[in-house]
Structures are given as C-alpha cells and as structure tokens.
C-alpha cells in the first residue's frame, strides 16, 4: 500500500478532517495563552515604568530640579539597575544611565516609545531594546523613564516559539496518527478484500482471518465468514446432489435403455417385447418418483414453502396418515398403532408434513418384520413444551454410526440394497423438518428405530400442556414418551 493510497482512503479523510478541527482548536488555545501571558508582562512593565515616572515627578515638584537630579544620579548608579533614566534640559543630558535621547524612538502610544540603546563600554558595547515614557517638566526639562526590554522580549519570544513548536508537534502527531490509523484500518480492510478476491476467483475454502479484538472489523469479518460458511455448505450440497443424481439416476436410466434396446433386438418375440416395454415403463416411473422426491427436497431446503406455514393440528395429519397405512400394515402382519392426545398445534405445511409422516411410516413398515409393531405418536415434550411427532418400529434399527448418514440423499445401507426404495425417504423427512425449524432425531428404540421430529413450541398448546401429567419431574427420560390413552389408528 503506497502512502498516496492512504491519503485517498475514507479513514484518512476522516482523520484529516478531525486533525484540522483539532489544529484550529489547539491554535486558538495557544494563541489565547500567548495573548494573555505576553499582554500581562507588557502591562506589568508599563505600570512599573509609569509608577516610577510619577514618583520622580512628585520628587521634582517637591524638591526641584536639583533634588530630582540627585535622586536620578543615585538611582541610575545602583548596581544591576534595570530602569533607564534620562533627565535633560532640551537635548542636553543632565543625569541618568542613558547617554542621550534615543534617536530611533518609535512612539507607540501617547508619550511611550520603543527604542534601542547602547550599553557597556567600547568593545563590550551591546545594543539593547528599551521602552520608556517621556515627560516634559516645567522649565524646559525633559524626563525619560524606561526599562530595558531585552529579557521581557526574550521571554515573549520564548513563549512564542514554544507555542509554535507545540503547534508543530501537535500537527505532526496528528498527521502521523491519521496515517497510522488509516493504514491499520486499510490494511485490515485490504485483508478482507484480498480474501474476497481469492474467493471470487474460486477458492471457497478461504476465510478472513480474525484478530480476536472483537471490534467492528472483527465483527464484519466474522459475519462474512459465516456467510461464506453457509454459501460453501449450499455449494457442497449442490455438488453432492449433482454427484448423487449422476450416480443414482444414471443406473436406472441405463437399465431403461437396456430394456428398450432389448425389445428392439431381432429375435425377441412379441410377448417378450411387451414384457420388456412394461418393465421399461415401470423403470421410468421409478425414475419419475425419484426425481419428484429430489425436487421436493430441494424445494423444502430452499424454504420455498416457508410462507405457507400455518397453525394446524399435527395429530390430525398424523392420524390421517396412520389411517392410510393401517390396512397395508395389517396386510404385512404388522400392528400399526396411533397414540396422540387430542390436539397438538404446530406451525406447518399440511401436505409436506403428511408427506414426511408417510415416508417415516413407510420406512418403518418396510423394515419391521411380520408380527412386529409400528407406533406413530404425537405429543408434547414435557421438558420444553415442544410438540413432537415420532414413529417407532420394532425392526432392526439403524447402527449408531449410520444414523447421521441416512438423512443424506441417496444413502442406502448395505443391508437394504435388496429392498425397493430410492434412499431419499429419510432425507426428505430431514428437509421437511428443517423447513419447519424442527429437529429430527434417530434413536435406538431397543429393538428398532425411533424417529422423532421436535417442532418449535407454539402458544396454542397451553391447554394440552396444562392437562398433561408432569411426570417429567420424576423421571424426565421416561416421561418423554409416557404412554397416552391409546386409540387404534
């Protein structure tokens, strides 16, 4: 980063504006101090001179010219005398420590003059500044009383230069500070910019380094990082979907193609052709349903239906699904039970929830052996008053290590390779759950699988919660799935 670039930054411009304001106020302050100190010293000197002069005139009035002369001679010869005296008749000096009337006198106010005079002898002579008041005495005598101003002037100039230095130093530090601050800010912004550029050029794994200072730039970096995290996750998801689609749709597409080609082969009988075509159609149907599931998952994941969520009775939806599947379960020799308190309200999308429930029930039925049972239930979790929906089967369950994985798309565990299904059932449930801000949990039901969806709490359930026995206080884990009065679905 060039220094010139620093000057262009917003931070520097801000710092510079601030500096100007600061410099003006410092100048005003120092000017005021100078004005007061110098003015005070000048006034004091003038007053001393004036008092001395008036005293001498008093003496003149009382003791005449001779008396005055004596006094002046005496006072002028005092060692270290700073006061300047000159008594003259016309231009002829009579007494005093000035040898003659000053020639370069500049009158500043009535009777006041600034001048220079020589002091010392011969080679040691020194020209010094003086300030005096001159008075005309009766009888043609003139009196000059003044002060040597060298020290006063020196003090004044010291003050002046001190103040100028102070101003200079303030200015310097102001500019340097401005540059330093903006460089710092600019450097950190530059880091963010560089990372952004790297990400734009394709490296999505890059993150903006944080300083840990918890300031607003760190906040910005943190927020950007979170955003990147989300984007990356979405991108990964998309890539994964693309890969899975490529893999899991190509296989059935290939089978479809093979069957059609088989039907076209020369030596196939009409019957064989018909069979091949029919199985090609059912292959196509399978593909269509896989495709529909994928679309639905994608839709649920982008939250396209989020604005269609409304308050609805979860028990009713689940009851209808249990009702739909009950004969099929019985057909397979599996007992399907539906357990629910009267009304459980959730904010949801009826058709998607029905879809998810259907998937869970189908899944449970698929893996539950003859003579087993599937229990579908809704309830309120007594610990946090959140509505729940769960499906529990008595099948083999899912090994703990695989429970996370089965929620992903197209994941089919090794042992279910030979059962029909696209591997999308549970991932659709997971997507619907996410859309409802519900948590999905897969647990070991010993034996079997317990899949639970826990929805965000809504106020409308207060009546159900109030009526629910608080067994939670005694044993929270068991009470969570405390048996409710059962109704056969």
């Amino acid at each position, binding site marked *: 980063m060039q220094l010139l670039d620093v000057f262009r930054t917003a931070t520097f411009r801000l710092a510079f504006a601030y500096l100007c304001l600061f410099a003006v106020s410092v100048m005003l302050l120092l000017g005021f101090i100078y004005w007061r100190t110098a003015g005070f010293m000048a006034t004091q000197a003038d007053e001393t001179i004036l008092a001395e002069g008036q005293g001498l005139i008093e003496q003149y009035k009382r003791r005449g010219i001779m008396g005055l002369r004596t006094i002046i001679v005496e006072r002028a010869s005092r060692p270290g005398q700073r006061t300047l005296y000159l008594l003259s008749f016309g231009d002829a000096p009579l007494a005093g420590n000035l040898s003659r009337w000053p020639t370069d006198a500049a009158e500043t106010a009535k009777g006041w003059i600034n001048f220079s005079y020589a002091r010392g002898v011969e080679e040691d002579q020194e020209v010094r500044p003086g300030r005096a008041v001159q008075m005309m005495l009766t009888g043609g005598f003139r009196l000059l009383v003044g002060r040597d101003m060298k020290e006063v002037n020196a003090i004044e100039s010291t003050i002046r230069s001190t103040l100028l230095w102070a101003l200079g130093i303030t200015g310097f530090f102001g500019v340097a500070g401005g540059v330093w601050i903006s460089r710092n800010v600019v450097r950190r912004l530059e880091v963010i910019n560089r990372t952004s550029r790297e990400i734009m050029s394709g490296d999505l794994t890059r993150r903006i380094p944080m300083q840990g200072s918890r300031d607003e730039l760190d906040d910005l970096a943190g927020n950007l990082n979170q955003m990147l995290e989300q984007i990356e996750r979405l991108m990964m998801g998309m890539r994964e979907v693309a890969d899975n689609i490529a893999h899991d749709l190509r296989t059935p597409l290939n089978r479809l193609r093979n069957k059609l080609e088989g039907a076209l082969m020369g030596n196939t009988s009409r019957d064989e052709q018909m069979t091949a075509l029919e199985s090609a159609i059912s292959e196509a149907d399978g593909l269509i*349903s896989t495709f529909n599931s994928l*679309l639905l998952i994608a839709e649920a994941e982008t939250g396209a239906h989020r604005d269609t969520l409304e308050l609805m009775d979860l028990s009713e939806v689940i009851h209808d699904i249990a009702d739909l*599947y009950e004969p*099929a379960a019985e057909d397979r020799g599996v007992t399907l039970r539906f357990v629910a308190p009267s009304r459980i309200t959730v904010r949801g999308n009826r*058709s998607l929830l*029905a879809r998810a429930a259907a998937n869970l029930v*189908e899944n449970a039925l698929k893996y539950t052996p003859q003579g087993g049972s599937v229990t579908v239930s809704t309830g309120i979790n007594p610990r946090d008053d959140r509505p729940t929906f769960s499906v529990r089967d008595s099948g083999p369950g899912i090994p703990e290590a695989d429970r996370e994985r089965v929620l992903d798309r197209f994941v089919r565990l090794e042992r279910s390779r030979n059962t029909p299904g696209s591997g999308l059932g549970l991932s659709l449930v997971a997507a619907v759950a996410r859309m409802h801000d519900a948590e999905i949990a897969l647990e070991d039901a010993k034996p079997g699988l317990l899949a639970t969806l826990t929805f965000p709490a809504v106020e409308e359930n207060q009546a159900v919660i109030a009526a629910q026995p608080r067994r939670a206080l005694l044993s929270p884990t068991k009470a969570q799935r405390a048996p409710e009065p059962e109704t056969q679905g």
Partner: protein
Amino acid sequence: MRILVVEDDREAAAYLTRGLRESGHIVDHAPDGEDGLHLAMGGNYDVAVVDRMMPRVDGLAMVRRMRDEGNKTPVLFLSALGEVDDRVKGLRAGGDDYLAKPYAFAELLARIDALARRNGTDAVVTKLGVGDLELDLLSRTATRNAQRIDLQPREFLLLEYLMRHAGQVVTRTMLLENVWEYHFDPQTNVIDVHISRLRAKIDKGFTEPLLHTVRGAGYSLRAAS
C-alpha cells in the same frame, strides 16, 4: 367424446392425439393458447386438455378467458409444474383437474372420462346405486341386496367416490387425491389394500363382483349388465 388438445410441443401433441383417437375419441389440436381459445369457443367439446406453458397465450390465461366468456367445457391442465401451489393456481384459473407431467396415459384417460361425465351431474343426489349396491349419502349407510354393510368413514368416502364414477376407470392417484386429499405417490400399495378391504365388504358372499381391477390403470365399480 370430442376432446380439444392444446399443447405446443409437437411430439407430445402427436402422442396425445394418437392415443386419444385410438381410445375412440374425436380429437382437435391447437398449438397455442390463442388458437386453443378460438377452437374452445367455437366447437362443442366434452373436455379440453390444456398445457400450461405455451407461447402467445398460456394455458392459465386461456382458461381464464374461456371462463370469463361463459364457456363451461371441463378443463384438465397438463403441466410440468406439478407442485401443490401450481395445482392450486390451475384450479383457481378455472381448471377442473390437474395432471403433472410426466403422466401415465391410462391416468389421463381415466381423468378425462371422469371430467366428461361429471359435466351435467350438478344436481344434488342423496342416493347412489350400482347394481344392487346402494349408498345413502344422508344416513351414511351402505346396503347390498337389502343387507346392511358396515363401513369405516374413510371406506364410505372411498365407496362414494367409486360409485360417483361407476362404470369408469378410477386410478390409484385419483383415489389418493380425491378420497385422502394427498398429492404424492406412496411407495407401498396402500390404495390396493384399502380397495381389497372394501372389496371384502361389498363383494364377499355375493355371486356378482362389482369392484373390478383394471390392469395397468386402476379400479372400476360396475354392475355386470
């Protein structure tokens, strides 16, 4: 039946027209909504099969204009947009049924049949009958040959739907949509099991079966005569 097919994709239209003609219908084809509207207003069709996304005037706009001008021809929307929202949009625009692409031809035929016969049966009926099977919609009872049949509420709805479409082929999807109001295809044969339960109740013990399975399509409730 006279059927109007409004579909811009030439191959899809050719397939539809051929299939419907082979099933014994008279078919006219319009390649876009504007021609479709023109034909629908002029000809006296039993059913119009309308694609949604077409050049010039799209399907929704076409049906809306048909309805605005007082044309009551039953409309079946055929569309690649198959989500619940799209379905609702189609029905709001004045469509009578909605079938998402890709579809099975048997499904389309069954639905066209159902639509065409629905036309004109607007009168409120309180009793339905097929052969010696009777359904009283007021007292919610079913009898066959004066013998009372006990039905669960859902079974009653299922039988009612089948009886309202007596003699027609009713597909599993139609049953799922109209009796259960679900718009998805279950992986398992849930509908078949419901049907076989119903069949056990209405046909068991009687010589003449009423509830028939139509291979590759669905079910049909009809008396032998």
